[in-house]
């Protein structure tokens, strides 16, 4: 394994991180939180020095194979998390380092689960850094790097593949750097538009910005202690709509750019997503009708909550813990399915669910026609055996990680079954709130240190689609590499 190259990449990431850390420092200055600003600036400096040291020597061989890709991405995110937690901890916003780590991991992985009982007591710099981590983590920090730095050859595509969500990652344009730039431009553009919409909703600039960040990355960190119902109906509907928009494959938005809007609507995954979301909203609306006075109220809440959970954002406009069981179950199914591949949303991914369903249909067809040959198709192209098999294996790995995590969480005396089950789901699928004591009205603060570590791993694993983190912690991956590099 090309360790010099991996360290070099981590050095580049560190340098980028140091630049990003300057932003909360500036916010601190604006709000006269000089101590906090200083801490962020010093962290930025330290990170930059680490980055310089790691990227001192550019290795001769810059070919990135799949293994290097997975390890680089996982390591980058771990590095990001450990470093990003430091200013939150040192500035006093989140005094316990494990809590700060949990919070920043929840930030970067766009989970949005919080250990904080009182969000509003944070410094402005801290609030900014929390929400900004959603923005960067949403599209990915490696993708950000690929869009900025000169091309390192075609194999850097392995980095994009390891970080991007979805069963298969495709290229929109020939050059990787151009592709990454386009994605980030679309992403930033949409975020700016959302920001402007929120300003129209009479929200202060700071709040609009942070809310836009949280929605863009489908993260879900709130900046007020109350739930979303504290905001106006206009804000709720705008945010709900944008949450769904961010849950759509960004490659489809590119189709609008190159003048092929009809292909946008022909996309199978998008249609499935819209239909499932629509049905979910309707079912829940009628189910909670009795709890809310009017149809409009029920619809608004159902729309917001479904949008929030299916996109894995995790905002809550109501304590859905109190909703009837049918609604809660529908929401749980939404939480499992997640958003479309190639979006900033988390979850299992709509296209994977579709692939599983299509392969089940093939199996049933085989019962009726044992000698029949019917090749399942996806987006007009035949679905390869390799892709179907890969999806089933992904499901199994997901299931194993889920079961082991639930088991580990059950050691925590604070958590009941409802919590360990939904908490694991919320972390792996980067949603945020679970049910019961981890529901939308509560937080993850009372978990044991061990449970928090389990959740941290789950959040990272889920964001990076399982394999990078699992490969990263396997001793087999590192066997021989460390010995070889010593020679």
């Amino acid at each position, binding site marked *: 394994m090309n360790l010099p190259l991996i360290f070099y990449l981590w050095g580049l990431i560190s340098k980028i991180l140091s630049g990003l850390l300057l932003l909360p420092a500036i916010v601190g200055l604006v709000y006269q939180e000089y101590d906090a600003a200083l801490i962020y600036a010093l962290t930025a400096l330290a990170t930059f020095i680490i980055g310089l040291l790691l990227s001192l020597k550019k290795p001769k061989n810059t*070919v990135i194979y*799949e293994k290097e890709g997975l390890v680089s991405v996982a390591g980058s995110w771990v590095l990001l998390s450990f470093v990003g937690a430091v200013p939150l901890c040192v500035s006093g916003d989140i005094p316990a380092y494990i809590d700060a780590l949990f919070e920043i991991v929840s930030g970067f992985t766009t989970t949005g689960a919080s250990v904080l009982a009182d969000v509003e007591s944070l410094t402005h710099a801290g609030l900014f850094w929390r929400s900004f981590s959603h923005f960067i983590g949403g599209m990915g920090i490696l993708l950000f790097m690929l869009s900025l730095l000169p*091309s390192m*050859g*075609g*194999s*850097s*595509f*392995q980095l994009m*593949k390891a970080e991007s969500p979805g069963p298969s990652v495709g*290229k929109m*344009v*020939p*050059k*990787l750097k151009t592709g990454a730039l386009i994605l980030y431009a679309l992403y930033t553009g949409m975020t700016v538009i959302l920001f402007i919409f929120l300003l129209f909703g009479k929200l202060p600039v700071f709040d609009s910005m942070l809310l836009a960040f949280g929605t863009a990355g489908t993260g879900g960190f709130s900046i007020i202690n109350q739930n979303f119902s504290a905001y106006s109906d206009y804000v709720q509907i705008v945010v709900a709509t944008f949450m769904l928009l961010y849950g759509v494959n960004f490659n489809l938005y590119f189709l609008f750019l190159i003048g092929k809007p009809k292909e946008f609507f022909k996309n199978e995954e998008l249609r499935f997503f819209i239909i499932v979301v629509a049905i979910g909203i309707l079912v829940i609306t009628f189910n909670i009708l009795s709890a809310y006075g009017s149809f409009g109220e029920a619809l608004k809440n159902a729309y917001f909550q479904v949008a929030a959970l299916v996109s894995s954002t995790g905002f809550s406009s109501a304590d859905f813990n109190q909703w009837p069981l049918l609604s809660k179950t529908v929401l749980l199914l939404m939480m499992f399915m997640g958003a479309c591949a190639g979006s900033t949303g988390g979850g299992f991914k709509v296209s994977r669910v579709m692939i599983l369903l299509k392969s089940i249909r093939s199996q049933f067809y085989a019962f009726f026609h044992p000698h029949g040959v019917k090749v399942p198709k996806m987006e007009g192209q035949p679905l*390869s055996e390799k892709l179907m098999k890969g999806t089933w294996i992904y499901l199994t790995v997901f299931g194993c990680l889920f079961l082991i995590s639930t088991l580990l969480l059950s050691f925590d005396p604070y958590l009941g079954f409802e919590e360990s089950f939904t908490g694991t789901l919320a972390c792996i699928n980067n949603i945020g709130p679970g049910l019961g004591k981890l529901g939308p009205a509560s937080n993850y603060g009372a978990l044991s240190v061990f449970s928090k570590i389990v959740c941290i791993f789950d959040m990272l694993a889920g964001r990076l689609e399982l394999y990078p983190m699992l490969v990263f912690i396997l001793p087999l991956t590192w066997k021989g590499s460390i010995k070889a590099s010593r020679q």
Partner: protein
Amino acid sequence: MKIVIIGCGKIGLALTKELCKANHEITVIDENPEVVTNVNNTLDCIAIEGNGLSQSVQLSAGIDKADLMFAVTASDESNLLACMIAKTLGKCKTIPRVRNPLFSSEIGKLRETLSLAMVMNPDLTSARELARLFGKHSDIIDIDPFARGRVELTKIRVPKNSAFDGLQVKDLMTKTKANVLLCSLESDGKFEIPCGSSYIKSGDLVSYLATPHESTILLKDLGLHSQSVSNCMIIGGSRLAFYLAEQLIARGIKVKIIECKRERCEQLSASLPKADIICGDGSDQALLFEEGLEQTDAFISLTNLDEENVLLSLYAKSQGIKHVATKVNHTNYGKIIDTLDVGFVFNPQSMMIETVLGYVRARISSSASNVESIIRISDDKAEAIEFIINKDFNRLGVSLAELGRQHLIAPNTLMGCIVRGGKTIIPSGSDALMAGDNVIMVTTQPNVSDINDLIF
């Protein structure tokens, strides 16, 4: 430039790699999903799975906006058809690969009718190259013509105990009457564009520019005479063998081809009546002796297996045959094969790609100059580029000494040669560039497509 490449076999892949390096936007079409995945994972371009003859596939690859299209599938007919279809969908220049000798003889007319920009025939290109080197001393590694043959770039290995061993470049000119310009020096794997104080020792690879006449004088002074070759044995009756045999027979050299498939032998015999076609296995030493290996002047291994070619050539060398050439299809083991004594090693794909790259670069020339040809020196460490200077060039009439003094010439760049009005000038500090000159420059700068990349 936006380039579409249809077919990603050996040549397609090599072409894609080279063009990606030169930073063009490339879309590749191939029917093999594994090839597509591999290209997507390792090269900075898009690969699409599909049939390149389908209009919709070509359109999804962006043929309507492409500048250039290469059709390099395994079938000549498909390549020509793909070019025709591309012409109906867009305004790109089309370049097919056409290997079949049946078409190659009539290719001129086909080019006109189908408005093809260029036709790639790797076998013919290699055959011509081989024929040009034929009979030259084995330490002469390569000769490439510039300015329609008026100037040659010759690459030699400095022989042992030659008069030049241990000399500095500036003293070299005292040892020979030849008027040549040294362009590159490769010593113990290290490459440099030599200056007056560089040392030359035996075993070094040296490239120089000179007229054919001056080159002959230098070679004689070095002891690298041409030897006459009257007969030649070729192992493997491929298309390349056919083209080469044609060229050699035209020069009066007796050709013997050893091919193992009976049917192919009959085809060759019908198309090459003046050659001896032997049906048998080239690795059968008894057969080789039966056909007079001992009296053979030149031996060329052209089978489809690199390993067999290497072994055959090693054997031929061991039998004392001085002129040996070996075809190598896979370039991965290039450095290792270079250490073996197998004579002149060539790769038909590389030879073809050099020509193609020159063409692609010429497409993006600006108004200051036109690129006529590009020859690679020492893999991709340096290039010799021939420009035609246009009226729009902004340093017309400025002397070389002046350009150097004002640091207007790119680093590691040498002005090799100026051809003006039929006369070849090895330039000195007082010479300057005029409109209409053919100028050959040697440089390590990558991706040069215009004279302004080298003279600012």
